[in-house]
């Protein structure tokens, strides 16, 4: 069996703020198979973005192990780790702030190639043009600056920049949230195409269940620093088991339903502890069960 492209094993992350300790991640484990897209869905404060930042090395976990291609990277030397983590590239939500306004588009994409060891500037130039073409932009856009582009075009540039070092894994944190719906569809299609051609693995972080359903093979639902449910996308959506997953799905606006204005009966969400275990509810579909339930069942 080939190793998974990316594995996070019992990742914990705590921040201290004003003397208080905040648990951003309380033991998250998940794997992304080769060529697979794993969606991570959750609301603000769920820890999903911290998880993504740890996966690309922008943040270091407090404890837990990180594997790329089956090889543990968190105990490597800094130089080795940096080289290994180049296989993990990131796309951010806001293409306005993730691109440097004072550097040409070509410069920013080319930096990734240079970092990956390409030092011939002519080669860099032609590869940059190829990458621009690949993401649906004219080859000569390399000499322009980010402000000359629309939101959708900028996100294409950000994708080209992520692809430059030849990654095997792309972590995308809300890559389409800032875009109009018609542009969202184009960017999602582009991501799907590139995944197919380059056999990439994606860790796709989003708050939007529809967007996750469009692109992802599997989904992990996060709530308060834990994965509470995960499984094949259709199974989780059609047969949600955790009360939080049900809440989340029910809140998504839909046609054919009218808001009544009446307050819904509040749902008690279980407070999970470290002793809670995952229970299998279908093929590859697991749900975190509160320990009282486990004892009762």
């Amino acid at each position, binding site marked *: 069996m080939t190793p998974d492209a990316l594995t996070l094993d019992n990742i914990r992350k705590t921040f201290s703020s004003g003397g208080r300790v905040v648990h951003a991640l309380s033991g998250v484990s998940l794997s992304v198979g080769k060529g697979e897209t794993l969606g991570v869905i959750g609301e603000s404060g769920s820890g999903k973005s911290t998880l993504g930042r740890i996966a690309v090395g922008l943040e270091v976990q407090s404890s837990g192990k990180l594997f790329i291609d089956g090889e543990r990277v968190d105990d490597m030397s800094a130089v080795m780790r940096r080289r290994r983590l180049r296989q993990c590239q990131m796309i951010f939500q806001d293409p306005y702030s993730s691109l440097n306004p004072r550097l040409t588009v070509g410069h920013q994409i080319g930096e990734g190639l240079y970092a990956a060891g390409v030092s011939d500037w002519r080669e860099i130039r032609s590869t940059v043009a190829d990458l621009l073409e690949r993401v649906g932009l004219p080859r000569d856009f390399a000499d322009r600056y980010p402000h000359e582009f629309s939101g959708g075009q900028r996100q294409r540039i950000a994708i080209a920049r992520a692809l430059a070092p030849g990654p095997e894994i792309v972590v995308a944190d809300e890559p389409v949230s800032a875009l109009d719906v018609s542009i969202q569809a184009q960017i999602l299609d582009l991501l799907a195409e590139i995944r197919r051609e380059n056999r990439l693995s994606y860790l796709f972080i989003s708050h939007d269940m529809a967007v996750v359903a*469009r692109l992802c093979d599997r989904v992990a639902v996060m709530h308060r620093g834990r994965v509470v449910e995960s499984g094949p996308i259709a199974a989780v959506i059609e047969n949600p088991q955790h009360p939080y997953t049900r809440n989340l799905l029910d809140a*998504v606006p*839909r046609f054919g339903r*009218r808001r009544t*204005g*009446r307050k819904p009966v509040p749902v008690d969400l279980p407070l999970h502890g470290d002793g809670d275990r995952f229970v299998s509810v279908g093929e590859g579909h697991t749900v975190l069960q509160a320990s009282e339930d486990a004892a009762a069942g």
Partner: protein
Amino acid sequence: MTSSGNPYLTVRDLTVSFQGKGGEFHAVDRIGFELDRGEILALVGESGSGKSMTSLAVMRLLPQAARMSGRITIAGDDVASLPRRQMEDVRGARIGMVFQEPMTSLNPVLTIARQMTEGLIRHQGLSRKAALAAARSALDDVGFGEPDRVLSQYPHQLSGGMRQRVMIAAALALRPGILIADEPTTALDVTVQAQVLDLLVDLKSRLGSGILLITHDIGVVAETADRVAVMRHGRIVETGATDAVLRNPTHDYTKALLASHLTVEKALGLRPAEKGAPSRS
């Protein structure tokens, strides 16, 4: 307050334009609509459609560089002809406003009590005590169980959803005829969005508020609005009862907007068509 028979808010032939490098640019181009109390009208469109400029025009809060023509009447009064001082009374007392980002519309260094009573004291000439009572009852209206606790807090002590409810309460405390809500749930989590939308519908039916809901999300429109106006490039391209427009759109743009709206079900349906989706090894 409203003259009988006439809608509370009428907008006729509204145009908002800016002088640009390449000549005059129309952000809003000869649009018209009406809104009465007890109904929710949604202005829906993508960025640049002119929906927010429309709401700013109604409140006479357009940027200096903007030129406006057309006629906007609120409870019988022509907004354009009102002196500035009187317009300040219209904003607040007749039209309440709720914006997308509650953190930027609340003053971070003032307690909620201070911010909510300020308008009441100024617009309605209430005493501090009466203003506090009105603020308390408005917070109760938007579902805060312990209004006094909220009143003593600062904005940063509240969650995003709570802040947005405080904003709505602050607007409601002045008992405006209509509420303009510009992307009120866009910055909120989806479960919190559901609560705020329920609140808007509740205010409409319980207090008879008229609500102008500005949104880019056609799913939100489907669940909450009685009528909808679809905007594109500054124009209203289609308008009617929400059900009718969403079920039988006639304009190509409305059709396109509906087609590009991604629902969870549609997204799942699209997946099998995708070739080469790998199976887990």
